[in-house]
């Protein structure tokens, strides 16, 4: 056979082979189980797509970077000077209905979400100015230098104001709404005209499954690909046969014991700082991390992880596990071991009430029981109260200060470094945390941080405040830092974020 015939034969075979080697690409469809449908359709409380499932439809002005500092998204650049924010908008962006994202539509969107009683933005509605087609300026109502930080919250997603907003929200995000069945599911599909990096997944369905066990079983059975909201109980009951894969972030959420600082009898024993510090020394954090989270938790010295806002790992000294030192401190404070092993002073037993509730008991269980044993080892008796209902917790135990200690589990879940400090650790707290706040210099530092002239200054004040809370006042004892978790079926890789609202479901990949 001549060379040309051979080449022709191979060419022909190659052409014949083409249809067989070119496969139709299947649509990628991800199913995510989330807990509850929390969307409000009221125009003045519009939250339709501000939470995780449909946050893919609308984007925020800025996004959090790896250390929870704001980085550009719809806002390309910004500047803060003399109380005025000057912002340059991203060009070439359109809403999914084709409306261009420019100074006019950006101002309209910003005005829309600020009417949502959302005071964390504290935008001065009358201050918006269009500087040119892609530049705007605005002011904070309270001269805050942290408005941009708060815009990383998914609740601040920018929607195009339309009459049908509640039924069909329009944003600039990588997905558009395909269908929404209240209480059942939301399906979003790829926005073909998305301005940014196209996501990997074509379609995402978020199923609302309220029961933790049902979400886990559905994952095991292959009916969902990912579970977005994972409790420690689900992790404890997670099958170990490889049918479920645990994805974890860096530790971010804290478990802490907060003391009643009001000092009203009979819950006044912990007003003595020696008692608080002794209890802090009695906690074996490594064991707790191992038992409760299989080593995934981290013994905590500080309320927030050091990487967050670049706070640094040494922004508080914290407490080591030293039960003998704890015992000595209690001895020196006049608490002596009684016949039943519980310490006494002036005929009063060193018995403390510990309430475990927030955000729910199952999140921290069996931590209360383990702490009870650790405290018993230094002669402190503990009455555990477990409350599953946040209304009962706030009205019966927390608000009126009807306990010595409160076991709480939370995080600074946005990029405003002052948010958690101000709302949870000060006597000005709108959530009623005056009960567990030291007041004094912590209040002053928190106030100053909110009106600091720069982010760096704010962070430095926050750093000082947390150090004071832990080391100086010991009004709160850090116990553990815990990651955020998602569960997925084998073969599904989830790009997890410490900021739970920012888990990139669109960039989930199927290994097989």
């Amino acid at each position, binding site marked *: 056979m001549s060379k040309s015939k051979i080449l022709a034969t191979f060419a022909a075979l190659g052409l014949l082979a083409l249809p067989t080697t070119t496969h139709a690409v299947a649509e990628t469809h991800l199913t995510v189980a989330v807990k509850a449908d929390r969307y409000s*359709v*009221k125009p003045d409380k519009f939250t339709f797509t501000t939470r995780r499932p449909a946050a893919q439809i609308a984007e925020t002005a800025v996004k959090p970077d790896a250390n929870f500092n704001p980085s550009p998204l719809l806002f390309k650049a910004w500047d803060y000077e003399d109380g005025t924010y000057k912002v340059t908008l991203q060009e070439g962006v359109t809403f999914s209905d084709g409306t261009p994202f420019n100074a006019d539509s950006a101002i309209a969107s910003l005005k829309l979400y600020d009417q*949502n009683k959302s005071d964390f933005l504290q935008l001065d509605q009358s201050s918006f100015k269009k500087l040119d087609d892609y530049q705007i300026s605005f002011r904070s109502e309270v001269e805050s230098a942290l408005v941009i930080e708060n815009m990383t919250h998914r609740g601040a997603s920018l929607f195009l104001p339309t009459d049908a907003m509640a039924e069909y929200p329009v944003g600039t995000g990588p997905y558009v709404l395909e269908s929404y069945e209240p*209480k*059942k599911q939301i399906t979003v599909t790829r926005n073909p005209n998305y301005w940014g990096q196209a996501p990997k997944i074509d379609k995402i369905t978020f199923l609302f499954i309220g029961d933790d*066990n049902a979400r886990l079983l559905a994952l095991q059975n292959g009916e969902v690909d990912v579970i977005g909201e994972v409790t420690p109980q689900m992790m404890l009951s997670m099958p170990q046969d490889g049918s479920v894969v645990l994805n974890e972030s860096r530790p971010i959420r804290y478990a802490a014991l907060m003391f009643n600082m009001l000092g009203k009898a009979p819950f006044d024993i912990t007003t003595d700082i020696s008692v608080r510090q002794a209890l802090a020394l009695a906690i074996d954090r490594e064991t707790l991390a191992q038992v409760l989270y299989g080593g995934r938790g981290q013994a905590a010295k500080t309320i927030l992880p050091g990487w967050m806002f670049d706070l640094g790992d040494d922004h508080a000294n914290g407490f080591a596990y030293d039960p003998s030192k704890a015992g000595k401190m209690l001895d020196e404070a006049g608490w002596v071991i009684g016949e039943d092993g519980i310490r006494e002073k002036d005929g009063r037993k060193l018995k403390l009430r510990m309430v475990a509730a927030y955000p729910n008991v199952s999140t921290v269980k069996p931590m209360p029981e383990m702490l009870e044993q650790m405290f018993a080892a230094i002669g402190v008796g503990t009455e555990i109260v477990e409350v599953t*209902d946040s209304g009962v917790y706030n009205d019966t135990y927390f608000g009126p200060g009807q306990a010595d200690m409160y076991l709480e589990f939370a995080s600074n879940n946005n990029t405003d470094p002052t948010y958690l400090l101000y*709302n949870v650790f000060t006597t000005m707290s709108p959530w009623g945390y005056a009960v567990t706040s030291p007041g004094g210099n912590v209040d002053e530092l928190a106030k100053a941080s909110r009106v600091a002239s720069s982010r760096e200054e704010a962070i430095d004040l926050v750093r000082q405040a947390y150090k004071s809370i832990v080391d100086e006042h010991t009004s709160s004892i850090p116990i553990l830092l815990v990651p955020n978790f998602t569960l997925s079926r084998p073969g599904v890789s989830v790009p997890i974020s410490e900021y739970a609202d920012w888990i990139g479901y669109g960039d989930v990949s199927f290994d097989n």
Partner: protein
Amino acid sequence: MLKFLLTRLAMTLPTLLGMSFVAFAIVALAPGDPVQMELRAMGIVPKPEDIAAIKAEYGLDKPFFIRYAHWLVRALQFDFGTSVATGRSVIAEIGLYLPATLMLSLTSLVGAIGISLALGTLAVMADRYTANCVRAVSIVLVSIPSFWLALLLIHVFVLNLGWSRLVGNGSAIDLILPALTLSIGAGAAMGRFVYERVRAEACEDYVRLAIAKGVSPLGILLGHVGPRIIGSMTTVWSNTLGGLLGGAVIVESIFGWPGLGQLILQAIGQRDFPIIQGYLVLMGLVFFVTSFLADIVLVTADPQLRRGLADE
């Protein structure tokens, strides 16, 4: 008959009024500030004026009895207000869930009736040993907690056999396991009632007469005993239906069935008080309607009662 119905209706009015008051009071007096909880759910740090505005919006700034009176007037017009959490009207919100719960409850009732008749008649007609076994099985089935049975069924039929799926879309096939879970317990409970009633009727003269005439046991059961017990069974069925409508919360939650159970669990967690009040009133109405219908059936099925009412 008409007089009976009107009297029966009139007698329920105070009950319904009391029930509405209890529903309102339970929610109003429960711990947990709905305004604070709503603001927290929205991630909003409240200013005093925000709290005052929302309290005024929901009428929470008024005294308890004024609020109750306003609520009652609106409730009589089937306006139960707006969900704090979602912004939809309470009626719309209940309308989203009610069909699924109705479907589940009615299917479960049919299943429970079938199970109860099978267990009850088997226990009557079988020999002593078998009857004792059937009764023992009934007691076991009544005693099994529904959440445990649900998990067992999921383990067997969903995870092991793969015959069903857990996350349904509300279609008929997804109904089987939750309905079976509810049917088994309710059916076993009703089966004991069937057994007792049939046994009681078996001692009556008309049954002896039928035996003397040579009618087969099955013929006696279906042709003679059945019609006599149908009235009392209807009362049991109606109460069971009411119980299934209001009591399927756990089963709905485990199977992710989009029924009223999911609604009320979420509403309680969020202190969505208009929803809770609307739900409680709805459940009261359900029990009222089902027992009312049972009374009508009872009267219609029992010739003696019918004649008695006609003579009045």
